């Protein structure tokens, strides 16, 4: 372990800069950008909620915490309780069996709070939307501030979406410059 630690100390980090978000994503986050920065500065605590996804979105959300995407360098971290959270990251077509749990989790999150719906299922256009067992889009159950589509969205898509929300284009570019 010591050898490994030493090697990691003298090797350059593998963390990568984030490319600029698309114009559509910038626009979607524009209204919210100031709000989050004003309330929270540059830290964001996220509680993830799987409201019936296939687990594909969860795999890519997990990847955000790996050394290459390193979401924590932006002040974003995942928390265990909605009571510690600023933002809910919700996946899945909201199954009827998860509806109440999602509503209760939202209610347990103290204000100010935001909700990001993740994936085509969360956006309401996945293939389970019309099932007897599903509500559909997350926005049918709780208010949603941003939608990040994909099946599943890549970690880059997710990171760009979260950054647009958090600190906006200029601040993100400043952080990126330090690491490139």
């Amino acid at each position, binding site marked *: 372990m010591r050898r490994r630690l030493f090697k990691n100390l003298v090797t350059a980090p593998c963390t990568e800069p984030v490319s600029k978000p698309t114009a559509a994503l910038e626009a979607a986050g524009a209204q919210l950008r100031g709000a989050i920065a004003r309330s929270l500065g540059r830290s964001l605590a996220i509680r993830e909620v799987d409201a019936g996804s296939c687990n*594909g979105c969860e795999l890519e959300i997990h990847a955000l915490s790996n050394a290459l995407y390193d979401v924590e360098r932006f002040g974003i971290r*995942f928390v265990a309780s909605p009571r510690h959270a600023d933002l809910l990251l919700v996946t899945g077509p909201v199954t*009827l069996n998860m509806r*109440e749990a999602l509503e209760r989790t939202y209610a347990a999150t103290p204000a100010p709070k935001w909700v990001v719906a993740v994936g085509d299922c969360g956006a309401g256009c996945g293939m*389970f939307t019309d*099932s007897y067992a599903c509500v559909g889009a997350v926005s049918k159950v709780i208010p949603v501030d941003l939608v990040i589509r994909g099946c599943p969205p890549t970690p880059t898509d997710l990171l760009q979406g979260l950054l647009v929300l958090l600190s906006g284009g200029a601040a993100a570019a400043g952080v990126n410059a330090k690491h490139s």
Partner: protein
Amino acid sequence: MFKALFGNLTPTAAHRGWPRVVADADIWQRIGEALREDKLDLLGLWGDGAAVHCALYEPSTRQIVSATIDVHDGKVPSLAVFHAPASRLERTIRDLFGIEFVALPDPRPWLDHGRWPDSVPLADQPRPHAPLPPYRFLDAEGPSLHQIPVGPVHAGIIEPGHFRFTASGETVVRLEERLGYTHKGIEKLLCGKSIDEAGRIAARVSGDSTVAYSFVFALAVEAALEFHPPPRAVWMRAVMAELERIANHLGDIGAICNDAAFSMMHAECGILREEVLRACTVAFGHRLMMDRIVPGGVAVDLEPAGQHAILSVTQKLRRQFPELIELYENTASLQDRTVGTGVVTAALAARFAASGYVGRASSRSFDARICLPYPPYDAAPIEIVVRPEGDVDARVWVRIREIQLSAGWLEAALASLPLGPVHLPVITAPAAPVEGSALVEGFRGDILAYVRIGPGRRIERCHLRDPSWFLWPLLEAAIEGNIVADFPLCNKSFNCSYSGHDL
């Protein structure tokens, strides 16, 4: 055993993949007895209109047979009275189809939480839902016991499920799971779909096993239609399946260590997993290779750049993985957490026909690639990895060895990939319904697919059985006697699918 049970019966001609026979109540009873005496393994049990099918495996002969019993008066005999692993499956058939099982030991609903607009959604006549009583968890008696309810929203970034612990101090006296939170009504959605549409749904039953699900669905459809995909596609399917296996095993090993607070392994394995997914993007255009295996073959060809990307990653694994293995086995505090924790006995693993790394880490020598080989594994066998200890550590070691074997298999396969087309159109239009069954070894165990295709090549019935059906119950046994704080470690060492199970 099969000869004794089914010797007089003629298999249904319309069913391909392996034989399917129609049984009566008397034979069903003898199937139950054979299961109780551990002479046969139950690989699946599902409803189909006014019938119930089961899939049975005989380890001594390595044969698989499906048996069907017709519903009479809304009832069929129960296999759960003989064989505990059938219990949740029968409760589910009852929830979805309304078929009653005579003397069903556990009468509680399973996937039905009372939230659907109609009950028995797959029955010919679904009924408006009457309210269900609150779910009654099993009792535990003893001094100073307390209950800890966990979930459905639980832990970190993970699928939803409920875990009701009964604990005495730190020690778990009983764990009872309640699942079904991610039930999306998949079996009903599949009915009436075209083969292509159904394939896209099958790819999203369990995102981490999208390749294996697409693989088994394609094989079942192709069996039903007596179609043979081109050789290059046959090999490419396995290339994708092994990449999926490696990526998941890397993620799991890291996450298991992380649940024992050893985040360094998690960080290092996370980098390797990311390298694999990026190679998959170069080679197949999608990090998880979703929708890349389709009935008829595969959806994209493997170009030299893609082949190079895959080989780069297997070579990187050769260079970098041994050091991580050494880190795992030489960190005493980590070994202290994983060795001897969460033991699944060989007897239980055998009774539940536990597949994948859970079964093989508890002495069960079954791997569908080896025991019921499907192309290309029949031409290029892979070694089976079995360990006797049955603890978290053994489940980690099975994964470590499988990563090494899969990487070697990939290098050999890519060196001799056949040339030619990767897809042929599936145009057979059968006059009468045809059925197909298949079994594929996904990264967490064997996935069973049964499909019946009707006029216009539309799906009449498709059942996809996730390996987790037979692994979830074993988690309850594994955690008993361990401390509550070791639950995340045990749970992650199993890594059962919630979505694959809940359908």
